[in-house]
């Protein structure tokens, strides 16, 4: 008997089940096909979109992130350039091949150098686009891939995230809906839920930012929020 079989046999003996029980397996597969929600915090329920934006913003700012709201994506390059300038950071960015990022009017921010590809050790700022923003706890949902290489979220000292206001949802479960809509059951290698810059409480009793990942985070929210959340 293989180790796998031996472990499973001990598990079955422990829970008092026999191996060949297709009924139980079918019931469980059914549960997986239509995942039921548990209690969802009321803090985001039936909130107008503008309030969800405000909630997301408040949570992110409480974690020292900077949040910038601009009316449309055309204003993003300028907003990024001024953020970098205001923080005395190099006017250089690295991003993946996300079509939205590629098509931004980068010419409106002369002097800003945009490089492509996964993060290099020498990169100072990474730019990625979020699939969704969860207002419940101010959590951004990012997915790995050539559009937004995962290392851009962790390696550079500064992380800038683009988030369409229309992609802001209430609870985590609404983000799962978007994930399933886009990927079905085959998730990308990583789904990163990010709620602020890196921090640690391991030395001394205070929280220190920039333990291993980014020291600072900036979230640029662009466009108008969706009017009807149920449409998401």
């Amino acid at each position, binding site marked *: 008997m*293989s*180790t*796998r079989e*031996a*472990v*499973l046999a*001990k*598990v*079955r*003996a*422990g*829970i*008092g089940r026999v*191996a060949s029980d297709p009924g*139980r397996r079918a019931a*469980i597969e059914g549960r*997986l096909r239509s*995942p*039921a929600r548990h*209690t969802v*915090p*009321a*803090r985001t329920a039936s909130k107008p979109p503008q309030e969800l934006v405000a909630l997301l913003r408040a*949570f992110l700012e409480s974690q020292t992130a900077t949040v910038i709201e601009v009316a449309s994506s055309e204003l993003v390059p300028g907003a990024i350039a001024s953020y970098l300038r205001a923080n005395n950071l190099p006017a250089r960015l690295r991003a*993946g091949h996300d079509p939205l990022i590629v098509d931004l009017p980068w010419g409106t921010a002369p002097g800003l150098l945009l490089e492509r*590809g*996964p*993060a290099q*050790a020498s990169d100072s700022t990474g730019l990625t686009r979020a699939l969704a923003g969860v207002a419940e706890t*101010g*959590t951004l949902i990012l997915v*790995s*891939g*050539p559009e937004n*290489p995962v290392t851009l979220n962790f*390696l550079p000292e500064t992380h800038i995230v683009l988030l369409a206001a229309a992609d802001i949802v209430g609870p*985590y479960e609404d983000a*799962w809906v978007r*994930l399933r809509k886009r990927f079905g059951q*085959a*998730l*990308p*290698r*990583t*789904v*990163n*839920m*990010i*709620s602020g*810059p*890196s*921090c*640690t409480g391991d*030395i*001394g*009793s*205070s929280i220190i930012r920039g*333990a*291993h*990942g980014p020291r600072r985070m900036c979230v640029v929210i662009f466009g108008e929020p969706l009017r009807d959340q149920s449409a998401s």
Partner: protein
Amino acid sequence: MQPTSASFKSNARAALTDRALQSALADLQAGFVARRAAVKSRLPEFEALREEGRDIRDHALANLDVYLEIYEERASAAGAKVHWAATAEDARRIVLDICREVGARLVTKGKSMISEEIALNAHLEAAGLEVVETDLGEYLLQIRRESPSHIIAPAIHLTMDQIEADFRRRHVHLARERKLADPVRLVDEARQVLREKFIRADVGITGANFLVAETGSSIIVTNEGNGDLTQSLARVHVVIASIDKVVPTLEDAAALLRLLARSATGQEFTAYTTISTGPRRPSDPDGPQAYHVVLLDNGRSELLGTPFREVLRCIRCGACMNHCPVYSAVGGQAYGWVYPGPIGAVLTPLLLGIERAGHLPNASTFCGRCESVCPVKIPLTRLMRHHRETEFEERRQRPLQRLALKAWAFLARHPGLYHVSARFLIVFLSALGRSRGAFRWLPFAGGWTRHRDFPAPQGRTFQQLWAEHQRGVSR
């Protein structure tokens, strides 16, 4: 790590006189307890979520075989290589084989209690590999060759002076005259030293807070981002998880994640929660080329059919130890192994044997704060009592202790006799202690009177006072 749970009593005595430890424990407890209370008060649904958390974990455990099979199928479909390990030895061998197969020299690690449980680092190091812990707390312990004192804040007992001295001793390639005497500089130095390891690492090992059957994913929760650099920069990502970690769906994971950070650090959510599924895809420009998952049993399956099954619900938040009066007096290292506090007092005897860890379930006042904060409602005091019963049945206590327990059991079963004896004892002690109001020394109570006075009884038993009170109420 080599367990020292058998010497809990002397470990605890040493801890009680360790000033640095005592001050760190006071800060830790105040901080975690207050932060948890604050974040809980902002989530009115918290208690409902605890009930659901318990039910989700119970459901997953009651169908663990099927969930493990489905998890394995879906993880494999995403390109994961799933390994099964019945024992710690199996798991160590599997991980070492993976490292050897890819010719690894440098291994980075995220925090994993399972890897401590199976003493993975020592095994890999003995085979000539360089193993680097990347969680800041774990890194500090690694360079000091110490065991963790808390499951989520492992180096909480260290002072800044100690850390500075360790860094100067260890990081000899850095300028000797550099300034280090503040936490920000210390964190920066660790960042600089470990960054180079992340980039050079061949294999990155992480634990898993949850495995998700629906998607074949593993989930890790961190604040530092070290687990992410570990898994995304190494050529190979190895996840090591015990079989009880599987949950059915992302919805189930969401409910448990709502409980985890709040119970652990008192945060609304950690900085990073990462759902990982398989190795890098053909079009991905980064991420590991291979993704292995080691599913470890190491005694868990044997608990499923016992009253101890409920301990497998644990999501390793550490709330039980943060709220424990015994933990906050002696710290985690006194418990002598990987899992301290109330959860350790239940789990350690199960994994190491009651003969090697029998002191732990006895080191409890049964005040019950642990289970009142447990996010998945594990009946920790009941399970500790089970251990004590087993000890008694297996005749593990000393003869005098057994005799005392038997006498107590006899009295407790004969209320009439109990009342008479209690009344006699109270009157006697009250007369004897009237002059001072307290005793400096009492026979059979040296464990108490060595540290503090024993207050003299006032002349009537609790039962008498209660009866009088009831009469007063009914009048």
